[in-house]
């Protein structure tokens, strides 16, 4: 364990001004109030448009949301007073908007209401957020559990292989009527492990990599091993679970964190090469993935074949129908997408009913969240914290890109949940934990250093 915690020489950034850093909790509270207000307004708009009257339990939804937001705010106020004031309001707003969109789509599937379940999962997510913020006083504690994390992550990812496939992918555990995607939670554990491993070994990786770049066969296994392992793991995951999105996310996360730790473009080149080989092989030989690539290249092929529009075509139709300003909440027909309209394709509903304006706002919210993560990474003083913040921000960024790019036809579609917006319990809970960690990291970054540490 000592190797993992070894200090690496790195010029420290200038320390923040002593003691007088503003906490800005008032700003956070105001933004939270705004976020809750927007969501309650959306809730009422949907009810008026779909049922013609205000929602049945008029105040319950508002009370739930406001209560959860207040609880999270209090946890931050007392346990992470220097945290970034933007992170929590963005999370509340995105989660609330997701609930509004799911409630809107519920109106088109009266036999399968899902908003209630999503609300309960969101509550659980907020509870976990509070728990993490309260219990985890210092993010560096996580560094000690690096190998435990990776073991747990591998276990979580392997378990679903033994469960029956759902919609062509082995990524769900179904137990007692509940379904859970353990791979979602594994993301965080892997980010923790990567951060700890790279923080400890980055010097070795950085130096040997340069000298031996043109003699790759001589590279010691100790150095080349990890990247090959992760690559094999990703491909293995893909083959075993047929989950293109998650394996893409893991690999991308690892390459980004490796680059951040070492600054070696060579690693990126190797990583991209391996990814390209893997993606090409899988895209060519794996039928499930191959059909996705075909759909992406020609989304309207099924129409020409007389089989009617496929999901991606329906998604594009939905976005197009939204236009600049959108049809208005409850006035779109994104339910035509059918299967997965509430989960993977939730963004299409936002696109149709809120328009380009709404989509841009939502994407910018994600952009802001990622930006705050990177800011925390820049302001932190320890390499583990920096890498962890970079990793968590990258998880959000990659996930948004993969799924939003997929449903808008920018890249081949891979099943993945839009953070906070999409229906799916494991995803919401995981994202709340990510946000809790970002809050913790932000607090550590801006907290005035204790006098003895500052003097040292």
């Amino acid at each position, binding site marked *: 364990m000592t190797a993992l915690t070894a200090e690496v020489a*790195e010029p420290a*950034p200038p320390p923040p001004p002593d003691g007088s850093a503003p906490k800005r909790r008032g700003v956070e509270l105001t933004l939270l109030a705004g976020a809750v207000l927007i969501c309650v307004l959306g809730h009422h708009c949907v009810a008026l448009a779909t049922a013609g009257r205000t929602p049945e339990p008029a105040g319950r939804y508002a009370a739930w949301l406001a209560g959860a937001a207040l609880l999270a705010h209090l946890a931050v106020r007392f346990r992470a007073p220097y945290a970034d004031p933007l992170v929590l309001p963005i999370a509340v707003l995105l989660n609330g908007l997701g609930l509004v969109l799911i409630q809107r789509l519920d109106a088109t599937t009266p036999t399968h209401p899902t908003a209630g379940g999503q609300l309960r999962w969101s509550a659980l997510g907020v509870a976990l957020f509070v728990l993490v913020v309260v219990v985890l006083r210092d993010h560096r504690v996580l560094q000690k559990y690096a190998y435990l994390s990776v073991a747990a992550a591998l276990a979580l990812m392997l378990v679903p292989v033994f469960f029956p496939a759902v919609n062509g992918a082995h990524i769900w555990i179904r137990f007692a009527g509940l379904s859970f995607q353990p791979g979602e939670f594994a993301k965080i554990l892997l980010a923790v492990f990567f951060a700890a491993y790279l923080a400890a070994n980055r010097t070795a990786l950085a130096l040997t990599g340069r000298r031996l770049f043109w003699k790759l066969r001589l590279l010691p296994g100790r150095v080349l091993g990890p990247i090959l392992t992760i690559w094999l793991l990703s491909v293995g995951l893909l083959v075993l679970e047929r989950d293109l999105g998650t394996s893409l996310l893991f690999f991308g996360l690892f390459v*980004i964190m490796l*680059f*951040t*730790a070492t*600054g070696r473009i060579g690693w990126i080149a190797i990583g991209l090469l391996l990814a390209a080989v893997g993606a090409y092989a899988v895209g060519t030989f794996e039928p499930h993935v191959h059909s996705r690539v075909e759909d992406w290249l020609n989304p*309207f092929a099924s*129409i020409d074949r007389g089989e*009617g*529009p496929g999901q991606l*075509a329906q998604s*594009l*139709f939905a*976005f*197009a*129908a*939204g*236009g*600049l*300003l959108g*049809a*208005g909440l409850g*006035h779109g*027909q994104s339910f*035509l997408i059918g299967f997965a309209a509430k989960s993977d394709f939730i963004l299409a509903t936002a*696109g149709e009913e809120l*328009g*380009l304006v709404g*989509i*841009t706002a939502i*994407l*910018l919210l*994600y*952009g802001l969240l*990622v*930006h705050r993560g*990177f800011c925390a*990474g*820049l302001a932190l003083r320890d*390499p583990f914290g*920096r890498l962890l913040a*970079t990793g968590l*921000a*990258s998880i959000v*960024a*990659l996930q*948004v*890109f993969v799924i*939003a*790019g997929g449903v*808008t*036809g*920018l890249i081949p579609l891979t099943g993945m949940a839009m953070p906070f917006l999409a229906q799916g319990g494991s995803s919401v809970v995981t994202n709340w934990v990510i946000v809790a960690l970002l809050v913790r990291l932000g607090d550590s970054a801006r907290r005035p250093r204790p006098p003895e540490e500052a003097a040292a």
Partner: protein
Amino acid sequence: MIRYIRWCACFCALLLAALLVNVARVQVWEAAAYGANPANKRPAVERYAEPRGDILVDGRPVTGSRDSGQLLRYERTYENGPLYAPVTGFSSQTYGTSLLERAEDAILAGTDPGLSAFPLWYELARGRPSGGNAETTVRAGVQRAAYTGLAGRRGAAVALEPATGRILALVSSPSYDPAELSGTGGPVKAAWARLNADPARPMLNRALRETYPPGSTFKIVTAAAALDAGVVADVDAPTQTPDPYPLPGTNTLLPNAGSGCQDASMAEAVQWSCNTVMAKIGVRVGLRAMVDAARRFGFNEEGLRVPAWVSRSNFDTDMSPDQLALSSIGQFNTRATPLQMAMVAAAVAGGGELPSPYLVERTTQDDGDQVRRGRPHGLGRAMSPATALRLQEMMVAVVENGTGHNAAIPGAVVGGKTGTAQHGVGNAGTPYAWFIGWAKAQDAPLPGVAVAVVVEDAEARRGDISGNGAAAPIARAVMEAALAAPAKR
């Protein structure tokens, strides 16, 4: 490490920019193309999301809308579907629209800009006004008389108001129920296939879209041409026509159906429907004058709309004298829609002015405010008023003391002309029985109705008897109904 984190942040910013650009591409640049993709159901969902406006007869809707609970929500319903099908047409979620449902679709579906005082508001709010209504000129009693008169035999009947061109009845027989085609799914497809395969062609609107050889009813046009051209100055003067009449330049002899046509006057020729006399008169009028007269009555005109489109009626413009002789008695290539022959009768009844027929009295918003009003207008003068008066007298003689006595109505002045058109190779086909005419109530200043009736499967007896036997009673019932219930406008 700071620098590399910045690079990563820049990379993420690039991803975000790519997403934003792509979303803008889909939602702005490609939006119109995607929206117009035939597989995109949104236009259809939107179209059927609200009840469709109604088509009204005598102020009462003959259509309706039913909430199907399906994705395409409101389906069309019809009251007395077969009776009004030649007027309304169908509005199908599977097969589109026809006739009035098509011609007034913008009003009925709520897309007409005239439905809203502030069209821009609906553009901005992305809503649309409720569908408007179309009030027809059809009168229920007249329509029903024509429909029951035809009684499912193949044929058509059209009644016009001569002064205005209002279509009082428009019947095609056999008919069909357009409600069968309203929705989607198997039964609708089966009904469509069955109706299209039916040899009686129930979906063909014979009144507007089928052309028949007009036979002897065309002699009215020939007589008008002769009078207007001055070829016949005295209708009662003998014409020195042999019976049978050898077609000019050939050895073919043109016979008559009855006797007493030898050397008959034009009045007698109309009264007893002498082929020989009228063929000879047509040849004497000459090709150019005959073509001009036919055109003045509406033949050879493309693009007549009522507002549903109407097939072109034909009178050949390049013929030899023997062909002209046959054409002058409504044979050879001469073809007319029942509506066209009703217009001929209306022109005579209206003093020579050819009215423009129309079906839609006015269109309104769903609250009754008027959007547009059908305005009577003439299509020009078909003949001089004096000619019209003389033709009226001759047509009255046909009914009072000629081939058309079955059309007589006690207490009204009725003028008419029977016809039997032969067709097919060697006249082997079933003859078409025709009757065109008009009626004037005893105390009225002008004729109140003009009518044309054609029956395809008339009892296969040659001669003008079938026009009088099969078509004239229907015409009488229609004219009676029109005179009995004058318009309440």
